[in-house]
């Protein structure tokens, strides 16, 4: 049954900022355990799309379904319940500055899910261990490296037991040498069967993980398909042009 219904279904999302139409009707589906990657030039609406999916940005048009059930975002309770099931990783981490790593992971389960603190602490420690930060639990965000911050933010999302994770360029704010440790954590999640929607410019990483890649430009999904096809054999000229450019970049840097 679960394989039949997509975990997350996005239907025809539209979003404008004033006269600027950022999303022009985007639809996609995520099956359980599926990993989809969105690539495309900056300003194409990728980030806005992920923010819209989590209702962090109000949408003008479109519907979102979790496990086949439409989310009515004006019902506060329904919205917060939905967000608990959809983990979000931000480009600039957004750890809570006033809390140490452990409390960053702890606060969601304790304040939102009302899980007793001792139980939540156990879980938080386990999640931090999973991302390799057990020894850094008492450090504050300002005392952590970018890669460590992003791993804490992944642990924070995981502690809420999400069914889907949305990752918005999780490594683009990181120094090159720190990207690997975050990729490793994401790869572990993928192996564990987490359903993910990932926006990234790291095509090499994307192609090794994704079962489908979307090329998004100018507020639309221009082309979609398996990684090999999109990256090396795209039908659309723009996709090909973009992929060959970032492909070259990738080859040069490696």
């Amino acid at each position, binding site marked *: 049954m679960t394989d039949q219904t997509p975990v997350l279904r996005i239907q025809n999302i539209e979003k404008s900022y004033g006269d600027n139409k950022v999303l022009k009707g985007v639809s996609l589906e995520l099956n359980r355990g599926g990993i989809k990657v969105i690539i495309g030039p900056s300003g194409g609406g990728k980030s806005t799309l992920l923010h819209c999916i*989590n209702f962090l940005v109000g949408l003008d048009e479109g519907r979102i379904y979790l496990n086949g059930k439409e989310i009515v975002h004006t019902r506060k309770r329904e919205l917060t319940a939905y*967000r*608990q099931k959809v983990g979000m990783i*931000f480009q600039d981490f957004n750890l*809570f*500055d006033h809390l140490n790593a452990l409390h960053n992971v702890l606060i969601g389960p304790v304040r*939102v899910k009302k899980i007793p603190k001792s139980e939540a602490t156990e879980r938080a420690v386990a999640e931090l261990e999973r991302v390799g930060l057990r020894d850094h639990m008492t*450090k504050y965000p*300002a005392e952590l490296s970018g890669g460590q911050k992003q791993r804490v933010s992944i642990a924070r*999302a995981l502690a809420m037991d999400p069914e889907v994770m949305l990752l918005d360029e999780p490594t683009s704010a990181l120094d090159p040498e720190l990207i690997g440790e975050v990729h490793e954590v994401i790869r572990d999640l993928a192996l564990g069967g987490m359903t993910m929607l990932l926006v990234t410019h790291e095509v090499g990483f994307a192609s090794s993980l994704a079962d489908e890649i979307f090329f998004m430009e100018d507020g639309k999904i221009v082309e979609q398909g398996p990684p090999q096809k999109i990256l090396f054999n795209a039908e659309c000229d723009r996709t090909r042009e973009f992929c060959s450019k970032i492909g070259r970049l990738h080859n040069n840097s490696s």
Partner: protein
Amino acid sequence: MDELLFLRQEVAPELLAGVWMSIKLIIPSTIFGFFIGIVSGVLRVYGNPVLKRLAGLYVLFFRGFPLLVQLYLWYFGLPRIGIYLSPFAAAVIGFSLCSGAYHSEYIRGALLSIRKGQLLAAYSLGFSKIRAVFSILLPQAMRRALPGSGNEFIYLIKYSSLAYMVTCIELTGKGSILANFYFKYLEIFSIVGAIYLVMVSIATWGLNYLEDRIAIPGFGRPKYS
């Protein structure tokens, strides 16, 4: 020598009673004022349009009317509509509401200075707006507001002397009575001033200590001590 004996036996007990009254005015006014400031500061940033407007009007009036005029209204004005406040109650209400209006602005500024991402991250974990504000934003904002709000606490210590004008006899009131009675203005008001200085110094020290205590590690903030 006579002078000293006189000060110790006649003046000191009276002034001490005054200090005690001042403290009884300052502490509740500080607490209520800060609390009112938090609520109205939060409403001014995150309230719905109606509440935002109301909080804005509150700040406008209570910062706009001179404090002395506010005290007169509470104590001498309200009986006109059948409400009789004791001098003490009128003073505490007046101080709290005026102080709250200033705190409100410090809190508002601090809330506005917090990166949007903090709120987005809280939302993405399923926090409601009100819970996000109280669990995530306010703890950060209060740290940032503390230097400004601390200033307001210190003002309050000194403007508590206005309570005398609505017949609540605190330190300054006691001082005036004694000075008039013994005709020793220089001596007594010097002592009164020095006592305020001591209270302000203690408050300053306490605030600096608090700032150090709640500072977030890693932000490289220089310590006071």
